[in-house]
C-alpha cells in the first residue's frame, strides 16, 4: 500500500528563480537553502512521488472556466511563464496514482476537474524545480490546483475536506509507493494591488507558529476577510497549506526558514510537517 512519508509547506514565489534586481542575496540564499534542505529530506525519505498542492494565478485557467480543484492526470510540462528563468521541460508524472485519486474522489463526493495535458504555472513548478527534481530524476509528480487565489475562492472547509480525501486516496492505492506532500504559496503578499510589496511579518510568524504547533483548527478558523486584510490576496494560499496538512492524521511543524522580502513581494516561509 502507498504511504505518506513526509510533508512540507513552502512558497512558490516565481521571483525566486527570476532573480529581479535589488534582491537581498543573503535572504535569497537562505530561502533557496531551505528548498535544498527539503530536496535532501525528500531524498532521505526515499519518496517515489510528490503531490504538490498549489494555486493558479490566471495563467492556466481563465475567466471562462475556474475549477475549484483540478488534478494533472496525464502529460505534464512547465513552467508556463517564460520569464521565470526555468527552461520549459517535461515533468515526470504519476498518472496511475493521479487517476486513482481522481476516481477515489469521484466515489467519495469530489468531482475533480482533470487535465490530460497540464502546463504548470509557478504555483507548482517552482517547488518541483527546487525541491523535487534535485531529489532525483526518477521522482514522479502529481500536481493539484485549488482555487485559493482566483475568485470564486474555494472555502477553507472544502480545502480541508479535499486534503483529507487525498490522504485517504493515497493510503488506499494498492502499490507500495512512498509519497510526500507539498502545500505551497503564501505567506503574506499583496499581488498587483495598491499595497504590493508590503509584508506583514507578525501575520507570517503567527501562521508559522500555528504550523509548528500543528494547530489546524485555528488555521481553519481564519476568515477570507482576515486573510485579505492582514496577509493580502496572496495569503489565501494558506488554504493550499491546509489542504496539504489535512492529508495527515496529525502533525507538528519545524520551520526551516522565514524571510520577509518586499523586493520579492512576499513573506517567505518553509516548514517541514513532522508526522
Amino acid at each position, binding site marked *: 500500500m502507498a504511504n505518506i512519508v513526509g510533508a512540507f509547506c513552502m512558497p512558490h514565489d516565481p521571483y525566486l528563480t527570476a532573480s*529581479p534586481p535589488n534582491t537581498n542575496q543573503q535572504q535569497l540564499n537562505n530561502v533557496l537553502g531551505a528548498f535544498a534542505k527539503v530536496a535532501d529530506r525528500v531524498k532521505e525519505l526515499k519518496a517515489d512521488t510528490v503531490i504538490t498542492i498549489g494555486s493558479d*494565478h*490566471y*495563467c492556466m485557467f*481563465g*475567466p*471562462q472556466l475556474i475549477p475549484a480543484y483540478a488534478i494533472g492526470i496525464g502529460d505534464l510540462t512547465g513552467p508556463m511563464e517564460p*520569464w521565470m528563468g526555468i527552461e520549459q521541460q517535461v515533468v515526470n508524472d504519476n498518472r496511475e496514482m493521479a487517476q486513482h485519486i481522481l476516481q477515489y474522489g469521484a466515489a467519495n463526493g469530489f468531482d475533480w476537474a482533470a487535465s490530460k495535458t497540464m502546463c504548470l504555472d509557478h504555483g507548482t513548478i517552482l517547488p518541483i524545480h527546487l525541491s523535487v527534481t534535485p531529489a532525483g530524476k526518477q521522482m514522479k509528480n502529481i500536481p493539484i490546483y485549488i482555487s485559493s*487565489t*482566483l*475568485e470564486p475562492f474555494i472555502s477553507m472547509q472544502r480545502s480541508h475536506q479535499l486534503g483529507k480525501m487525498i490522504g485517504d486516496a493515497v493510503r488506499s492505492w494498492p502499490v507500495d509507493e512512498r509519497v510526500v506532500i507539498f502545500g505551497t504559496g503564501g505567506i503574506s503578499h499583496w*499581488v*498587483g*494591488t*495598491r499595497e*504590493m*510589496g508590503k509584508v506583514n511579518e507578525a501575520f507570517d510568524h503567527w501562521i508559522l507558529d500555528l504550523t509548528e504547533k500543528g494547530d489546524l483548527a485555528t488555521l481553519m478558523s481564519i476568515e477570507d476577510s482576515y486573510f485579505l486584510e492582514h496577509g493580502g*490576496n496572496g495569503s489565501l494560499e494558506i488554504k493550499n497549506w491546509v489542504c496539504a496538512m489535512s492529508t495527515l492524521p496529525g502533525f507538528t511543524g519545524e520551520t526551516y526558514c522565514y524571510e520577509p522580502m518586499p523586493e520579492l513581494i512576499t513573506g517567505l516561509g518553509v516548514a517541514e510537517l513532522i508526522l
Partner: protein
Amino acid sequence: MSIFMLEKALWDLGDDPHKAAAYRENPNGYLDNYILTDRERNQVINLEVDQMADDGVSTLLTLMVYIMIRGTESFPDYLRKMGQEIPA
C-alpha cells in the same frame, strides 16, 4: 456586459501571443472582439490598471497584462500607477 468580459479581454492577451501582437498593432481592433463599454475600452488601451482594480478587475490580471505589454522593466511604473511613491 460586466467586468468579467473585461477580464476575458485581458486574460486572452496573456494567453495567446497572437492576440497580444494584434493588440499591440491595433488595440481598438483587438477590443472589437469583446463587448465592452467606452470606459472599459479606454482602460485597456491606456492600461489604466488603478481604475480597473477599483472597478473590481482581478489584480493578478492587471499586473500580468501591464508587465506583458510594457515589459518586465515597467514594474516600478505599475506601482506608480497604483499610487505608490517609487523614485524614478
